């Protein structure tokens, strides 16, 4: 057998061995929660989305550790487990949590798998595309933490508030939402932001785009000429409007507004409705714009 064949056979053997090892990888096992009383539950939150929903459920005091991305007021008196995408597993273990609340929206599958493999009870909330998803996650969270009734009551109140927002008939205002400036990131029709705008009586200028978040061109924004712009995100560049978009209607008429990062990025059923109310107010001309002194 010549050396080429030997080498080829060796490589094929190694690949088969590797595949076998991966296939034999056992699934993770979720241990039952030891502490079933709501009062004593020790919770580790793996991101602001989980944290805000836990606080809405009234379980903020049960959070023993969270990430550096959480609001400073939430972090006060609590331990830090690291970042959203690379949490410190040792730190999480040392907190002896009864449950870890994560989100498939921001946390890596690898860290969730690792926690499950180590026998830590983990709840990963689903990704968000709509208000229904936000509500479903909230109920799941409540059920997992023996607070389902509280969760349902909060949902009923939120939906009642939402039903009271009734945009008038007639032409809808064109709304442009900015998540980031460099590059210019906006939302398509696969996020709850698009639904927020629609419920508030507006129409997302990129509602014809079947994406969640994507980078758009300034040219396209000018072409679609939004009536209102609202923005959020870590890097705000309010000079951008005067420099790059001076000719569009929203900038000419000073209809550019800033929204809260956490409210937009880490929605709860209550803050979703808050946002719809705010956008409804902006569209009807009652909000504060960035050009006001």
């Amino acid at each position, binding site marked *: 057998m010549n050396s080429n064949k030997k080498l080829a056979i060796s490589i094929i053997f190694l*690949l088969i061995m590797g595949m076998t090892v991966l296939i034999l*990888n056992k699934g993770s096992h979720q241990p039952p929660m030891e502490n079933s009383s709501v009062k004593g539950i020790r919770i580790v939150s793996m991101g602001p989305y989980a944290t805000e929903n836990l606080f809405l459920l009234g379980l903020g005091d049960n959070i023993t550790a969270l990430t550096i991305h959480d609001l400073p007021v939430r972090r006060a008196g609590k331990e830090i487990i690291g970042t959203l995408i690379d949490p410190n597993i040792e730190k999480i273990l040392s907190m*002896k949590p009864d449950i870890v609340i994560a989100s498939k929206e921001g946390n890596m599958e690898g860290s969730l798998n690792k926690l499950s493999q180590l026998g830590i009870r983990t709840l990963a909330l689903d990704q968000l595309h709509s208000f229904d998803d936000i509500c479903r996650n909230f109920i799941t969270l409540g059920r997992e933490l023996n607070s389902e009734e509280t969760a349902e009551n909060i949902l009923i109140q939120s939906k009642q508030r939402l039903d009271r927002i009734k945009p008038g008939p007639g032409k809808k205002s064109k709304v442009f939402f900015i998540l980031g400036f460099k590059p210019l990131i906006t939302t398509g029709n696969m996020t709850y932001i698009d639904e927020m705008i629609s419920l508030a009586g507006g129409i997302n200028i990129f509602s014809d785009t079947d994406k969640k978040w994507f980078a758009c061109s300034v040219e396209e924004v000018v072409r679609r000429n939004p009536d209102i712009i609202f923005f959020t995100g870590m890097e705000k560049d309010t000079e951008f409007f005067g420099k790059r978009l001076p000719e569009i209607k929203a900038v000419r008429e000073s209809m550019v507004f800033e929204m809260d990062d956490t409210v937009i990025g880490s929605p709860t059923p209550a803050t979703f409705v808050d946002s719809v109310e705010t956008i409804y107010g902006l569209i009807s001309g009652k909000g504060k714009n960035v050009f006001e002194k």
Partner: protein
Amino acid sequence: MSLKNKYGLLLFIFIISILSGICLGTKNFGIPGFFSLSGIDRLILFEIRIPRVLAGFIVGAGLSVAGSVLQAILRNPLAESYTLGISGGASLGICMGVLLGKFEVIPYFAFMGSIASILVILAVSSKKRFSNTTLILLGVALNFLFSSLVLFIMAVVKNDKFQSTLLWLIGDISYFPAKILMPSIIIISLISAYISFSGRIYDILSMGDEKAVSMGIDTYREKRSAFLLCCIIVGFCVSLSGIIGFVGLIIPHVSRFFFGSTHRKNLPASFIAGGSFLVLADTLARTLIKPVEIPVGVITGFFGGLFFIAMLLRSKQREI
């Protein structure tokens, strides 16, 4: 310093790196503490820290041995595992794995990507019998090609998968599937041992193709075997830790500086030094601003950059 003392120093560094990797972290363990471990401490040590130290060691060792061999056969001090397009292929494999949405297949796809890139190089070079310089340029070109494909995929991929890709591409030893650790340790160790025993071949190849042919070496066959063996090592390394740069570049130089150019001596030294270096780098990455963890690729990149500047300054002095 005698050779015996140098090996002694290397062994000392090895022991310090392993001990620091195991003892330091979110919670520091003293040696007496090992005799009174709580349940959580045992979980941290045996399920997280020790596997991580083992993974860090074998990745550093493997990348260093592969880098050493490639520098010898390509006769280029800047050659390393990723110069020949292997990192580009591995990155593309990682992206494909992330696209499929299953964490478990990412290491396998990273491995396949590494192998695919080297097979492309071997297939192209078998037609043309490229020189060493052309091989390196071909590798750089492949890196650019694969990297642009990676950027294209990241531009159009769903944003929730973007972050998973990022950690793999900058190197991290936190999230390898536990089941691939033992096979990786065995395979990388066996291939490294085989390469070390074949050290004389690389001594001859490093003198140039003409010299090697005159001494009866089939240079094409030996280089091809070496490429494939290095690629298998790098494939396993990438599947454990993603892309970690500079280890395979710096460590061969350091081991040649201390242990000489004879590969039977400097390859085992590269193995131990590379493993120890990456364990120390990972320990620093874990503890510098704990509990926030810095990706280990940031630490190796930082020290790699400093090393290169020092190397350039040293060579500049020689030119004068």
